């Protein structure tokens, strides 16, 4: 009886231990998956939002609701570089030209986040303070093309010859379980701002 009871207790402890171990592993795996999946959802939402904002803004390069006020839209791009662009547009359709400036900040600005590669993508309207929020952007790369479709190599000294732009955007989750960062990539192969060449 005593030996049998002892065997029961030992057996129960082994089975209970296995179950406990499974439960703990399950908890760990569930936490990891929840963290990563939620992070991935958040990152994909961020990517879609940034893509929509960029498309909305870039398609308006050279636009003015009163077209007489901006006679030559080919002069709309003021400065163009691989990760920075300044251009003119009437963003709020009030017939007054606004300047929009997009640029990518340094990684050191987001040293507080676990992801060492994320940066702030800034949008500056006229002379207002730069606006940004941490959406996990790790790459914002622009490639410019002329009217024939040839790539314009940087540095771009004559921005007036730009007729289309390739936009590359990568985002990563700003924090991840066990440093397994999720990433997503979006590319607008040829964004044509119609006003650049409408006359």
């Amino acid at each position: 009886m005593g030996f049998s009871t002892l065997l029961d207790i030992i057996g129960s402890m082994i089975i209970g231990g296995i179950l406990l171990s499974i439960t703990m592993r399950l908890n760990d795996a569930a936490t990891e998956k929840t963290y990563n999946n939620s992070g991935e959802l958040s990152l994909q939402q961020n990517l879609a939002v940034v893509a929509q904002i960029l498309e909305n803004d870039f398609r308006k390069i050279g636009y003015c609701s009163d077209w007489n006020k901006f006679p030559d839209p080919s002069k709309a791009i003021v400065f163009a570089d691989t990760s920075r662009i300044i251009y003119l547009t009437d963003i709020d359709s009030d017939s007054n030209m606004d300047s929009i400036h997009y640029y990518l900040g340094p990684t050191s600005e987001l040293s507080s986040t676990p992801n060492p590669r994320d940066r702030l993508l800034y949008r500056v309207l006229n002379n207002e303070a730069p606006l940004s929020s941490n959406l996990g952007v790790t790459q914002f790369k622009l490639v410019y093309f002329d009217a024939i479709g040839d790539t314009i190599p940087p540095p771009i000294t004559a921005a007036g010859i730009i007729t289309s732009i390739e936009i590359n955007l990568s985002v990563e989750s700003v924090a991840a379980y066990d440093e397994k960062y999720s990433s997503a990539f979006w590319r607008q192969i040829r964004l044509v701002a119609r006003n650049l060449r409408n006359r």
Partner: protein
Amino acid sequence: MSGKATLLLIVGFSIIFLIVSRNFGDVSNRAVDNFINYHKETVAHDLAVSGANIAANQIFMDPTWDDGFDDVPFQNGTMDISVQILDAFKNIRQITSHGTYQGYTHTAKVVLAPSKFSKFAYYSVSEGGTIWWTGSDTVWGPFHTQDYLRAHKHPVFFGKATTKRSTIYYTNEKTDKPYFYGGYEQGVNLPLPTTAVDDMEAIADDAGFKLSGHDTVYITFDRDSLRYRFSYNAKNTVVYLPAAAPNGLIFAKDCVVRLNGVVKGQYTLGCSSIMSAGKGTIYLDNDIVFDKDPRIYPTSNDLLGICAENNVLITNNLANQSDINIHGSVYCEKGGFGAEKYDTRPISGNINLLGGIIQNTRKAVGTFGTSGIKTGFAKRYKYDDRLMVASPPFFPGTGGFEIVSWYE
């Protein structure tokens, strides 16, 4: 007892697994929804832009078209297109195109304005035989020729270049291909009107200033006044232009005009010919310039159209032997822009043109050899950027529209 515990354990784990898997499934669904929504918005945008393009094409084919389209099904969505006339006098039209796809709607608005020949930096029907555009030639604004574009050693075209016929290379494409920084399109047929200058007479009769009944008219723009006489030694008559030509059109019927002066305001000078090829020609006796040069005064509103039924020629006289400055858009309906006696006159410096040249047949302004200019002028043509949107009053139109603003 142990059976119940096992059952509870299984049920408990099942519930946990169900909750976790539902959570995972929900996250996955939301991630997919996110991109489906982006896709729907993109399709709605593409539908709106497609509708705008279709409507613009209709207007290019038929400038009077304003019917629009109602809820045309396309790519599992619909396009709803309307055309509004924003300004009946200036004939400014707007296409509004709504693209709808699965609950998402996007709108594109396109404004079209009548296209004027004055927007061209250079236009010709005939290139005058075998005149070549060379590596030292740069055209800064829109370019069109109904002829071949003959290229030698990479001429540069910064504006959009179009030709009805093709490009011919002096040697081969590698050594001669032009640099088209504003794009290039061939097969574009844009004929010059044949009665545009004659048609100005009725407009001048309405609210312009008309001169007729004389073989030659000497015209001097004196800012907002116009001095004119009918013979070289006669005394000038002076008129105040805003009162004499409130619509901005000055028309000289069936005569030769000898022109110079300083222009303040926006005017077009038309010169017609009824039968004689010698008439309908405008001679530039001296500089004809703006009161305020837009390169110095960017807000300058001064504009001038110099429209001859036949030719616009730089007079071979003393005043023009040391450069000539021309501000305005030159239009030659049946002839061309050139220099009188270009092959025998002395070396005369530069033609400093700010504006554009629209001509039927390209004409020469000088001759050159290996050592440079031998007779006549060197060309220094600069496009007046304001002509992209503004035109001198009643300057001949192409009969079609052009897109001036695109919102999407």
